[in-house]
């Protein structure tokens, strides 16, 4: 057949792959392969279709066959690139392209692909070598710059020792000066050049470049280059020159970049003796700017404030009333802008007479308003007064009367925004958020949930007037969770349309400790699904971001490359990502029957997370904070149990689950090494084996753990520890040897694919078929410790302690952890459920200890379950609604009327009922699933 004819037949395969019809792609491939059994392209397309239909083993076989033939055909290479990416085998992609390029060293495209493969795999050293080779061969400047960038990135790797780092930067410097064309031909080459000079502290050379005419032009149009220039001047100690330059820009070019003002401020205080004089000069300059700009720009005015603050710091301020005068002046001019409070925040920390004067000024702001500007002034004054409330005035009475004031003003202010389109935020919103903040304070002071009832009623009302107010929603989400009404929190969360990267930064609002609300045991997997949805962004990151790093190389935007890499790393190693993963595992164990498959699968995933260097990308600043500076912030106040999860929380939970799964699994490190497909994560430093570290790390960072874990979580963690310590020797003894496990895996592969397991050599076994003879005696069976035996009784006691708390979250928390402990116990004891294992290992004594623990646990869980169900019956009733509505009587007016509040009462109470009942019934279900 002619090649054109073959091409025509291959086309539909591509189409099928493009539209996701992998099955039909496989069928087509098989058909064509009958006629062309040696055709690499068809084989590679088949491999791709197989990977995409999750037929990993089959695909692997084909894959290795194609790679062994060392393809050079463009289409084959491209298809294989996708196959290998799907398998997570980036290193093999590199090898494949390297082999191809070696065969055709004059093929520029292959060279570039080899370079990119290295870039995608983050292998900077070989990337640099490839680029160097390409530069020699093809004499294109860009390849020289690729090799320079590769060298710099290699230097920047965490594993590069300091001396090597310097050497690499020196090499980069040598290369860039050898370039036949000067770097200033492009802003991004220039940027790369400057960053190398900065690193090597070759400031004179940098200065020369920047001062040249072209260099100056680049810095005046490229913000990135100018950023670098600024830094180099600072490092060089050219504060004065920088100040002069900034002054010129401010005066002549009317530049109002705040960075220029900071530069002027920096010069003002460089020579100690002359500061007073310089302060005067700067003062004149800023005053002149402030007058010129009026309300158009705040820089001059804010510059004056910052100048005074620094003058005080340097002991050259001679007018003690000046700071407050300037603040007043600022307020007069900018008080009607929403950001005035934030602008002045750094200066608000006043004491004594200054504070008195300032507060008097704010109190004099008219509290009536007819225009938007007057309203904004009032709101700003409220925020600033509130900021400085002293402890003595943070009482229930004082806060209650503030709530009344804020609420009253809120309703008065509504007409001002009445004509705004629905897409706009209402200017009155902030007053309600102030009231919401004060409600939280009173709730904290009294622990009475009626204040939260009032708060949600008001805030729900706000949303009817200001549909887009995400700040109101965020506070509502927090309060609904505190009230044990997770479904309502979720509703608001969804209404914000969180998407893409926001899943990483915002999902903590809804997914923090979410397993305690999970109804997975009774089949409602809403929250588990929510967890899975957030994971999509991490997948996109690992699949797409490297493509853009490649693109930045092709378009030679060197300034972006380190930024992209940082972004990729921060998302890949996101703390929130793994917290969510942890929550998902906790929910999964309550949903699916615990089996060795789950144990193996989760073990492999969790193990890799433990050694990550985590980045915390969670956005907590998005929540407003109008609380007084002496108080806890609104974020901390509204976290469940007042404790936010951080690295210690994550490590504590990861550790206990990895340990339990390791014990329960047959995959020890050696087996896993052989069976796992895809690249392992890079490790910066060699560490002792994970298993050892997990055993030792029990008490690392106890103080921090105590801050992040609740006392009930800590009790659960130590139960898990004791359990694992107790059972480790028996697991280690009873676990089949690697040879047996591998043989079994090989058998399964043959059954599934018809091919033997590739690349795995099975060590010879003694004995046959798993019934291996052990040389040593089984470990002596010892009794479980008190902490294990007593755990469930303690949980019951804890439950009774918090049983009468108004909000259901305490009982839910204790109940969820008791259930989790029971599930963990089932993970730990699964191996010993098989009678033959117990018999072969002579562990009958151990199994009878399990029985007692299980019986006790079940009786405790059943009791809790029954109580939760009973409690749920008192929710969703007319009484529960009445309690709610009665708490809100003060709030009820003709606008926010009784029916409105009643409806919210109903929703809150129904939501609580649902979760109490669901968790209660779920526990009952788990008790019967694991009754023996």
């Amino acid at each position, binding site marked *: 057949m002619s090649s054109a004819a073959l091409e025509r037949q291959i086309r539909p395969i591509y189409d099928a792959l493009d539209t996701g019809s992998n099955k039909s792609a496989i069928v087509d491939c098989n058909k064509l392969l009958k006629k062309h059994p040696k055709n690499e392209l068809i084989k590679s397309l088949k491999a791709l279709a197989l990977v995409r239909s999750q037929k990993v083993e089959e695909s692997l076989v084909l894959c290795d066959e194609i790679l062994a033939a060392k393809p050079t055909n463009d289409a084959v290479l491209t298809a294989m690139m996708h196959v290998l990416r799907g398998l997570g085998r980036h290193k093999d992609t590199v090898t494949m392209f390297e082999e191809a390029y070696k065969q055709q060293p004059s093929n520029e495209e292959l060279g570039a692909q080899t370079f990119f493969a290295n870039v995608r795999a983050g292998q900077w050293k070989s990337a640099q070598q490839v680029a160097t080779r390409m530069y020699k061969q093809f004499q294109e400047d860009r390849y020289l710059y690729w090799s320079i960038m590769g060298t710099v990135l290699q230097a920047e790797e965490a594993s590069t020792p300091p001396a090597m780092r310097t050497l690499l930067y020196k090499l980069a410097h040598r290369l860039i000066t050898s370039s036949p064309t000067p770097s200033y031909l492009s802003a991004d080459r220039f940027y790369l050049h400057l960053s190398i000079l900065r690193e090597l502290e070759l400031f004179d050379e940098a200065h020369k470049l920047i001062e040249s005419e072209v260099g100056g032009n680049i810095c005046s149009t490229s913000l990135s280059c100018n950023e670098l220039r600024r830094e180099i001047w600072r490092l060089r100690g050219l504060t004065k020159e920088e100040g002069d330059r900034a002054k010129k820009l401010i005066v002549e070019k009317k530049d109002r970049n705040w960075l220029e003002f900071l530069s002027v401020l920096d010069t003002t205080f460089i020579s100690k003796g002359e500061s007073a004089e310089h302060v005067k000069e700067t003062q004149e300059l800023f005053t002149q700017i402030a007058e010129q700009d009026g309300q158009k720009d705040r820089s001059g005015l804010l510059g004056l404030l910052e100048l005074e603050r620094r003058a005080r710091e340097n002991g050259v301020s001679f007018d003690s009333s000046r700071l407050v005068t300037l603040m007043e002046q600022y307020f007069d001019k900018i008080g009607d802008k929403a*950001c005035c409070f934030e602008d002045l925040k*750094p200066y608000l920390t006043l004491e004594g007479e200054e504070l008195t004067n300032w507060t008097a000024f704010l109190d004099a702001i008219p509290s009536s308003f007819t225009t938007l500007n007057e309203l904004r002034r009032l709101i700003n004054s409220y925020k600033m007064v509130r900021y400085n409330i002293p402890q003595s005035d943070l009482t229930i009475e004082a806060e209650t009367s503030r709530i009344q004031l804020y609420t009253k003003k809120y309703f008065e202010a509504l007409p001002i925004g009445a004509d705004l389109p629905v897409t706009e935020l209402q200017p009155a919103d902030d007053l309600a958020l102030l009231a919401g903040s004060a409600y939280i304070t009173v709730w904290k002071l009294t622990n009475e949930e009626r204040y939260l009832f009032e708060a949600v009623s008001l805030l729900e009302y706000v949303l009817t007037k200001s549909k887009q107010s995400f700040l109101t929603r965020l506070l509502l989400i927090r309060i609904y969770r505190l009230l044990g009404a997770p479904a309502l929190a979720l509703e608001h969360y969804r209404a914000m349309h969180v998407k893409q*990267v926001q899943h990483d930064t915002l999902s903590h609002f809804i997914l923090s400790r979410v397993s305690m609300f999970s109804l997975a045991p009774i089949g409602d997997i809403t929250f588990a699904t929510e967890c899975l949805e957030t994971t999509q962004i991490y997948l996109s990151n690992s699949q797409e971001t490297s493509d853009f790093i490649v693109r930045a190389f092709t378009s030679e935007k060197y300034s972006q490359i380190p930024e992209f890499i940082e972004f990729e790393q921060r998302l890949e190693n996101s703390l929130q990502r793994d917290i969510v993963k942890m929550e998902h595992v906790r929910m999964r164990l309550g949903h699916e029957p615990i089996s060795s498959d789950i144990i193996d699968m989760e073990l492999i995933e969790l193990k890799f997370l433990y050694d990550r260097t985590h980045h915390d990308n969670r956005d907590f600043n998005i929540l407003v904070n109008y609380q007084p500076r002496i108080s806890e912030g609104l974020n901390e106040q509204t976290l469940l149990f007042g404790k936010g999860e951080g690295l210690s929380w994550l490590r504590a939970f990861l550790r206990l689950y990895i340990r339990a799964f390791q014990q329960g699994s047959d995959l020890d490190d050696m087996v896993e090494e052989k069976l796992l497909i895809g690249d392992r994560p890079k490790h910066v430093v060699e560490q002792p084996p994970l298993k050892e570290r997990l055993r030792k790390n029990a008490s690392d960072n106890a103080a921090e753990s105590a801050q992040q874990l609740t006392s009930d979580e800590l009790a659960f963690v130590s139960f898990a520890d004791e359990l694992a310590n107790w059972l480790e020797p028996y697991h280690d003894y009873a676990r089949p040897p690697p040879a047996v496990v591998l043989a079994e895996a090989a058998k399964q592969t043959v059954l599934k694919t018809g091919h033997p397991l590739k690349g795995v050599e099975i060590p010879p076994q003694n004995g046959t078929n798993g019934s291996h003879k052990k040389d040593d005696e089984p470990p002596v069976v010892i009794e479980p410790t008190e902490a294990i035996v007593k755990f469930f009784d303690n949980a019951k006691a804890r439950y009774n302690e918090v049983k009468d708390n108004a909000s259901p979250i305490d009982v839910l928390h204790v109940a969820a952890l008791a259930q989790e402990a029971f599930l963990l116990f089932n993970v730990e004891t699964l191996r010993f459920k098989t009678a033959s294992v117990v018999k072969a290992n002579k562990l009958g004594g151990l199994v009878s200890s399990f029985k007692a623990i299980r019986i006790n646990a079940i009786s405790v869980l059943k009791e809790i379950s029954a109580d939760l169900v009973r409690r749920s019956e008192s929710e969703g009733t007319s009484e529960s609604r009445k309690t709610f509505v009665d708490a809100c009587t003060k709030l009820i007016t003709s606008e926010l009327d009784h029916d409105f509040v009643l409806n919210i009462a109903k929703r809150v109470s129904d939501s609580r009922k649902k979760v109490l009942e669901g968790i209660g019934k779920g526990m009952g279900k788990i008790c019967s699933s694991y009754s023996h």
Partner: protein
Amino acid sequence: MSVLRPFKACDMFKFNNINLDIWTETYGIGFYLNYLARWPDLCCVQEAPSGRMMGYVIGKAEGSSTEWHGHVTALTVAPEYRRLSLARKMMNLLEMVSDEIYKGFFVDLYVRCANTVAIEMYEGLGYSVYRRVREYYGSLGIGRGGRDEEDAFDMRKPLSRDPGRRSVRSNGRDMIVSAHDVS
């Protein structure tokens, strides 16, 4: 009083106060990375001294011969920082770079016909409607706008390379094209 600086990839972790606003779309990470990988000098951020993001602009350069121009893909300022001339300053920068670096003939942008605040602002900055594009946007789901919600105005402002103002016209609001006529 704000810091004008380049948009950086990691700003995606910080832009919630801006992007949770209904007029501002949050795209996939590839969208931002693509712009940054190609036109980083047309993407910048305004930041408060506290480090909080206040607004950003994302732009590109495109077109051939006399249609070569700078394009504003997204311009947005967080609600609490509006009316502080931030949008004006970011537009200034984008126009300057489109003019001096890319040597474009004009700058253009698309805006929902219902977004009167933005349209008036652009007019104040020297832009004028070049044409109306039918169903350029998906629905915002707020209902009220009807056609104006989904249609876009293509607005333009000539740069120094177009002293004869050939890239604009006075009757642009009446020139109606469909979405697939524009790229």
